[in-house]
């Protein structure tokens, strides 16, 4: 199946979405996006980190070192309250945008 590049800025929305269902580490987030998008969206894994650090500086997410199931150390990210409100807002504006674009296209 053909892989699709996704628009700028949506990466953060996706990360927020993934983290809304529980804390996860960087590798896990990349996997989840891959799975949730039915393997269409594929994040270039490295680019996840600048986004995560940006979001961390803005206070949307917080981080903590933890252990994975196969007992490796990894940094887990978790939504903050600010992150949750961001998610709702971003989701809403995305939906508006998506409807508008599909309306135009149809």
């Amino acid at each position: 199946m053909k892989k699709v590049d996704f628009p700028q800025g949506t990466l953060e929305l996706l990360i927020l979405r993934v983290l809304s269902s529980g804390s996860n580490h960087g590798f896990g987030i990349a996997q989840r996006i891959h799975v949730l998008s039915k393997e269409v969206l594929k994040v270039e894994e490295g680019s996840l980190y600048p986004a995560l650090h940006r979001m961390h500086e803005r206070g949307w997410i917080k981080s903590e070192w933890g252990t994975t199931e196969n007992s490796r150390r990894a940094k887990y990210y978790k939504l903050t309250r600010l992150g949750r409100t961001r998610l709702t807002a971003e989701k809403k504006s995305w939906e508006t945008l998506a409807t508008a674009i599909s309306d135009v296209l149809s």
Partner: protein
Amino acid sequence: METLYRIRSWILSIFGLGRKNSDLSDEIESHIALQADLNIEAGMSPQAARREALKRFGNIEYFKEESRDAWRIRVVMDLIRDVRYSARSLWKSKGFSLAVVTTLALCIGANTTILSALYSLVLKPLPVENPERLVQLFNVRKDGTTESSSASSWTQYLDLRELDDLFEGCALRQDVTQIMGEAESARRVEGQKVTVEFFDLMGARPVLGRFFSPHEAKPEDPSNLLVLTQSVWENEYNSDPNVIGMRIPIHDYKDGRLPYTVIGVAPKSMEVFNFNAKYFAPFKIMSSEDTDAGRRYGRGAAVSDLWLRLKEEVSRDLALERIRAIEQRWLEEFSDKRYAWHNDRIAMFDQEHPLRNSLLLLEGGSLLVLLVGCFNIMTLTVNRVNQKRHELSIRGALGAGKFIVWRLLLMECACLVLVATALGSILAWGGNRIINKYLSILNPTTMPVAFDWELFIPVVIAMVGLAVLMSILPFEILWRTKLFQRVDGAARVASAGGLSRKLTNGMVVGQIAVAFAMLIGSALLFRSFQKVLAVDPGFEASQIIQARLDWDTIHSLYKKRSDKRSLKRRIYIAMQEIAGVDGVSFASNELLNPKLGHTFFKRGDEEEKPLAVMWHSVSTEFLATMDISLLEGRHFQPGDSEYAIIVDELFARRYFGDGDVLGAEMYFRKGGPHPGEPWYRVIGVCSRANLLGLEQRDESPILYGHQAVDEGGWSYTVLLRTSRSAGNVIHDMRTKLREIEPGLPLSYAGPLDEKLDELLTGRKAITYLLLSFSGLALLLSIIGVYAVLSYDVSQRRKEIGIRRAIGAGRSCVLKMILRQGASKTGIGLALGLLASLYFTRFLENQLFDVTAVDPWTYLATLLIFLLVALAASYIPARRAVRVDPLESLRL
């Protein structure tokens, strides 16, 4: 270099940057490991699994950098990088860095020292409540000269206290010296007497205990109370709160030794009036003194400070007018001619601080150093920017905007300023100690100049701002010439642009002009100082020991006049018995105390203008003891009355000219003596002895009145002539005096030459400080000449090489560079000469036996300057000579 890295990691760890960095690495590493685990599960070999994981992740360093960019702390990292870069590049050009740091540090040091002295001594308001409404009353001679005591008297205080519609209050303060402690541990200490309103008027609150209450200041109040100063309480009583109620014996001249009770501690701010005073005692005005006779005499006994607090809506002029009216009324009421000299006096509020002019002069000097320093920094930076032109133009070509280049230069500037401020503070601290050392001699009652942060910080900020401006300005100018936008290699080969060259030449000429004018000024002062030192004192200064007996103590010990006389006679005999003493005599006043002045009136001219003189009442053998020679007439003889006087040659010359002074008659008040009293009569003329100090050689003529040892009771300066060492003789004097009267200490004792030196302290301090300032200016301007020439030579290597190749000899090149140095110096010196011809006139009142246009001083300074400038040009000229002609041909 290793230490530099250690410092860097230390700074980074402060901001948690090190941890953050390793955290990021760990995070990415764990991501790759997790991916690799997954790949192994899928059946790959461990190596292949990891390789695949790395591939999927992408460029690790790129994403790391991108992540770091998200951090806010990034700004700090950039800053550290810039600082490191600047420090490295400055370290590489040590000459430049050293020159700028030294210049700036010296300017900061000199200016903060002098400014803080000026501020704390002259400009700073008194540390009291609402200082703008507090005024001190001075009684100044109408001709502007100050009298022996420009201070006020208690009768003035009583009169002015009535003006309660003008003043919120009025208080009197007087310095006293008393003997404190029991017989064995007794010592002379300074204290102050204050009227009961004093502390209230100043708005002071006690640190401990309380101040005096009104009934305790009444003369009939039997309690003797003390308020200690905070310094004494802290240093001598270890801040012991139990000091309240403690009893301290103090010798009072009226009542003898009495225990005084401590009732409180005054705050530090109250020490500004007399820094040496240890305590405050109530100023009691005896009701017996407050009579007509007392009030009549009272204006004369003016030894106190009178402080008044103006009511809010009252202007100074109005208050002064009313006070003068009261003074006039007093004069009319007691129009007795005996006190006619009060006619000359006028009440004033403001009097200049005695050190004001000297400090302003010094501040002028340090500002000029700053000016030269600014020129210097500018010259150096222009050269520096020129040198970096190549680097800067490459940066510009790579896309660095003006701001980035500007930031780099600013960072270099910040590094230099930081080091210079640290050094400058150390210099200022040292300068402060020097100032305080001089101050304690010049004006012992003044509080030492504190190292005032309140002042230091703004001064440093101003200096730093100036330095930044001086280094940015040349850059800005050069930027406009579009110098950096070219990468055509011109920067490497061509010499500096015309503009920057003009700029540096102008700076160097300016520097030289200012430095030369300063050097002329201080050389004139130095010559004056030498001339003063060369003045013959007119007496054997090194062989005479002067000692003061304490008047107050004698009066408290001996009530009867005959007892006082016999005490004096016993002291006279005892002093003669000391081994190695060749002569003993008494004088009324302390010698070498220039504050004393008197007036006399000639007979036949007794209503007319007063003759300003210095009056010394001396015992019969005074002139012989002091080795002052008689020029005309005769010496005092034991039988002479107190109306026989000997005048010095200056008196004869000034007031009698060619006329015959012998036999002339005069009196110390207008209108001559009372009926039945004789005139004073001149019996001899002696050579001039500079008993007011060497600088006062031409000031006040001296009159010597006669007072035999057995006569009168007020000559308490003992003069001993001896060839033995002063320390031993003074020790013997104390021993002898203790045998005669154990309760009577010597209040001051020392050789006269020591005192002569002490009187010159102020002149010495100013001369040497200004001399060192102008030395600094000279040094800085020479650095300027050197920097410009060596930069020039480095830029003209190719040209010089070609000249050499086509036949210019070594001496020809040498001359060419030297001529350049000489022409800059020449123009600077010419400008400086014009400036000094104009400005030295402001020094005129500080000069002694030297005119402001003294040709020798000018010539010598000019020569020194020329030689130093030539020496400074010689080094770059030598370097030019060594240029290899082949080098330029190879290029």
